[in-house]
């Protein structure tokens, strides 16, 4: 029992410590954002790495998710009502509001988040972060701000694209496998979907981008202990980002529903 409370206390102290360190990192990012010129070249480079390079995987994941969603909905609907009903509506809402933002965030966390942690961590281990200080700049200015901007700009764009691709995946299955006419599929979507439905998913992806950027940068800066440290932190970065995205997804969605973005 004593051991349990000891562990609990230690974990709590560690959590407070982490929150403090993350706050300092965010403060540093905000201060340097307003007090220095943006590194445009670095921002573009990171946007390509984080956004453009993730495009293929994001499309693949969302296209097949749209397909399987249409397939399952179609056959379930057939069993219940003898015909596939509202396939477009279900696929459209699920993809736009939930699956595209979450799946895209998970793919980006796994691909780009891990890369950011490993890169910053390796730079720390090899004293490249110290070198930034001696060369007149700062890790917040040169590394963190470009990555934050790249995540926050590209993840919502990827999500929009992922939503379109997912709906196209559903369209292909409903047309070819389920025999739903294309006009019915599109009507099912556009009759019920509103701008706020689109905004629900789009705004959520902004939060996810911030979460992934924060976790991956923080884990990179906290690395110690060489290659083993890089391995450990990279794994932790991906797992933490994914868990936070999935857990906070509910709370963000609930908050949006509360303010009428549904």
């Amino acid at each position: 029992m004593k051991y349990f409370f000891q562990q609990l206390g230690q974990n709590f102290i560690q959590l407070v410590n982490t929150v403090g360190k993350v706050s300092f990192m965010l403060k540093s990012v905000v201060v340097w954002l307003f007090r220095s010129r943006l590194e445009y070249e670095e921002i573009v480079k990171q946007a390509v790495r984080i956004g453009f390079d993730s495009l293929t995987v994001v499309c693949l994941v969302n296209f097949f998710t749209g397909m399987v969603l249409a397939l399952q909905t179609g056959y379930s609907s057939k069993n219940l009502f003898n015909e596939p009903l509202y396939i477009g509506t279900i696929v459209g809402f699920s993809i736009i509001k939930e699956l595209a933002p979450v799946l895209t965030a998970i793919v980006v966390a796994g691909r780009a988040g891990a890369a950011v942690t490993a890169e910053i961590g390796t730079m720390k281990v090899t004293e490249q972060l110290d070198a930034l200080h001696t060369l007149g700049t700062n890790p917040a200015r040169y590394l963190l701000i470009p990555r934050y901007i790249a995540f926050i700009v590209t993840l919502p764009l990827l999500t929009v694209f992922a939503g379109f691709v997912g709906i196209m995946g559903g369209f292909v299955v409903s047309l070819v496998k389920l025999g739903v006419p294309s006009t019915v599929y599109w009507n099912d979507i556009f009759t019920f979907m509103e701008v706020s439905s689109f905004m629900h998913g789009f705004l959520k992806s902004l939060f996810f981008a911030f979460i992934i950027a924060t976790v991956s940068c923080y884990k990179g800066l906290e690395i110690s202990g060489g290659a083993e440290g890089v391995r450990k932190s990279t794994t932790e970065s991906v797992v933490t980002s994914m868990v936070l995205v999935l857990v906070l997804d509910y709370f963000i969605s609930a908050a949006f529903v509360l303010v009428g973005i549904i």
Partner: protein
Amino acid sequence: MIEVENLVKKYKDNIVLDSISVNIYDGEMFSVMGPSGCGKSTFIKCLVRLIKPDGGRIIADGKNMAAIDDEFELAKYRRNFSYLFQGGALFDSLNVMENVCFGLKYLTDAEPSNYERIAKEKLSLVGLNNVEELEISELSGGMKKRVSLARAIATEPKYILYDEPTTGLDPVTSETISDLILDMQKKLDITSIVVTHDLKLAFSISDRVAMLHAGKFDFVGTPDDFRKSDNSVVKGFINNSIIDENNHKNGRE
């Protein structure tokens, strides 16, 4: 001139620098020696404020930089310094040219159109030509040190801090690097602070050497005085270095 007064640095309960005081004069080549883990790197990292000291003053050009907390003030202060890291600390994501030019953007008022010319000039000074487009992964250990040196001198600093400049290099390359350090000192008239446990390097390049032991400077003086010193720590260090070198030679034979 850099005046260090009662500099203190602790890591938890371990006192690494215990009220160290020393003056480093303009144009001087000052070496700090001592066994691995004695706090040599901590000392020069404190000088350039990569590490915040726990006490004492570091006065460079009249300013006490140990008391500066603002990152922007520190960035201004660091303009006069360059740091040659033990492993080079070259940016993997940039090529040789971009690495050498890196500091020019942040530390100097040089026109971007002149960056390439300056970089080529500095690379040529350290004996490297036609390497501008090479990636860092394509360079040998010695070449990395040279590129780091070119990056360090590109901004024309007043002070250069060398952290174990010959560690991990073969004897021939070590000698080349020590010749280069001397050469830079003569050509550019800068103040250099070298941290090393390489006796040969320290004796061949230094105007003064200091022996760091148990958080304090046990000796500060010329290399000749160092050789003749009766200080037991200095004697022990010299003897151990000679034994190490002989073992190394015998091992090679």
